[in-house]
């Protein structure tokens, strides 16, 4: 009987252990280890480590030029790392190769790993010569070879999800920035990714249009999508993310839960950054 009654401290320790056990059980979606990257001899990423588990929403914060975009772009091979390891859903995406360098897997293996990831860019990057619907259909039909009617059903469902089904036959240039960004999200979702990457998805938008995009992202997070989000939107990071990573000058200065990070920042740089964002 006595053993059943736990002290608060013991209970907390137990809960933490249970949490850790849970973390171990959850699938690591993204693993980045010892990531190094320079541009023309200038180091931009200096030994970055991160792990993202299924359902995590990781907000990557930091001042301009700290390497946030570069990190995200290295993860999906829009840039190449110089050193380190990248794993996606347990598969090696980039790592040491036979000739002692570091390289990404290629060809079909790369396409397969990229298929797990969807990316939303600051500048939307929709295909301007295709209608909204054609933008959504292109990759499912021509990359995944999904039957047309099936791809159409998915495209319609995704457009409905982002609230744009009545705009399916418009060209991107006929839509507002916020609508274009929601189409870009829908386009990525049509490939059924497991991980969504966002690089400042609202930075190119007029302030009154950021809300609709953030709402769509929040909805995705509620549906347990694994997300890595580079953002300057502090309220979004605070409310939606379950992990915060703060970068400066190519290193991770501090990371933790939103409560720890926003309420009890440890590092001076973090405090200064949060001050400047108030």
């Amino acid at each position: 009987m006595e053993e059943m009654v736990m002290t608060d401290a013991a209970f907390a320790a137990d809960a933490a252990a249970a949490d850790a056990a849970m973390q171990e059980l959850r699938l690591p979606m993204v693993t980045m280890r010892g990531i190094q990257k320079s541009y023309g001899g200038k180091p931009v990423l200096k030994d970055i480590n991160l792990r993202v588990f299924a359902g995590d929403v990781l907000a990557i914060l930091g001042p301009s030029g700290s390497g946030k975009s570069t990190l995200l772009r290295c993860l999906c091979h829009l840039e190449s790392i110089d050193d380190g390891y990248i794993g996606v859903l347990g598969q090696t995406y980039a790592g040491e190769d036979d000739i002692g360098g570091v390289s990404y897997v290629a060809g079909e293996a790369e396409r397969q790993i990229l298929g797990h990831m969807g990316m939303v860019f600051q500048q939307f990057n929709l295909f301007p010569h295709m209608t909204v619907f054609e933008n959504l259909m292109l990759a499912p039909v021509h990359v995944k070879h999904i039957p047309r009617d099936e791809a159409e059903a998915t495209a319609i469902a995704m457009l409905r999800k982002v609230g744009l089904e009545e705009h399916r036959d418009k060209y991107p240039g006929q839509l507002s920035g916020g609508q274009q960004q929601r189409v870009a999200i829908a386009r990525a979702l049509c490939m059924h990714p497991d991980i969504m990457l966002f690089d400042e998805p609202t930075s190119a938008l007029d302030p009154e249009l950021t809300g609709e995009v953030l709402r769509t992202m929040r909805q995705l997070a509620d549906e347990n999508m694994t997300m890595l989000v580079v953002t300057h939107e502090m309220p979004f990071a605070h409310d939606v993310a379950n992990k915060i990573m703060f970068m400066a000058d190519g290193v991770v200065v501090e990371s933790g839960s939103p409560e720890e990070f926003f309420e009890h920042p440890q590092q001076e740089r973090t405090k200064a950054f949060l001050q400047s964002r108030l």
Partner: protein
Amino acid sequence: MDHLMQMVLLMLEGTEVTLEIFVVTFILVLPLGLFAALGRLSSLRLLNRALELYIWIMRGTPLMLQLLFVYFALPMVGIKLPDIAAALLAFTLNYTAYFAEIFRAGIQAVPKGQYEAAHMLGLSKVQTMWRVVIPQMIRNVLPPMSNETINLVKDTSLIYILAMNDLLRVARTIVQREFDMTPFVVAAVFYLVMTAVLTWGFHRLEAHFGRYAM
């Protein structure tokens, strides 16, 4: 009146030669120019350099000289082409260089973000070019292409020196024989009709490919 009719008929025959050179050159130059542009943009260093040299020579020397070279110099080293083939070879070589530069600029004007979006969606290099980049390139290249195409129509008159009976040569022959300037006026009208049709056609294409905003 009868006389004028006869003259116009003669000149229509000359126009046939002119149009033949124009149409065949134009059709050949479109794919060749595109491949040359892709080669110029590729990372294959040797191909790149070779095309650069080729374009430099073709754009840096007069088309007239190139025509004379193909027509008179090649036979000296044992390559004897029929008249029309010689003219087509010179025109195609020359205009491929110009079109390659137009296509290259048109491809380079497509933003990097388009390639990045294609990469993320898993499109292959060929799919990216064919479905994303080239359709946008077409829109970019139509205005300069329209100019070059009209130049090509007018440049066909250079075959005059190769003793081929194109529109201009027929006109001059009649003028010399009859001491009458009318054939020159008729020739001018013929050229104007051809360039007007082309201008109209390109406007239609620009309207079609410009239907979306960038």
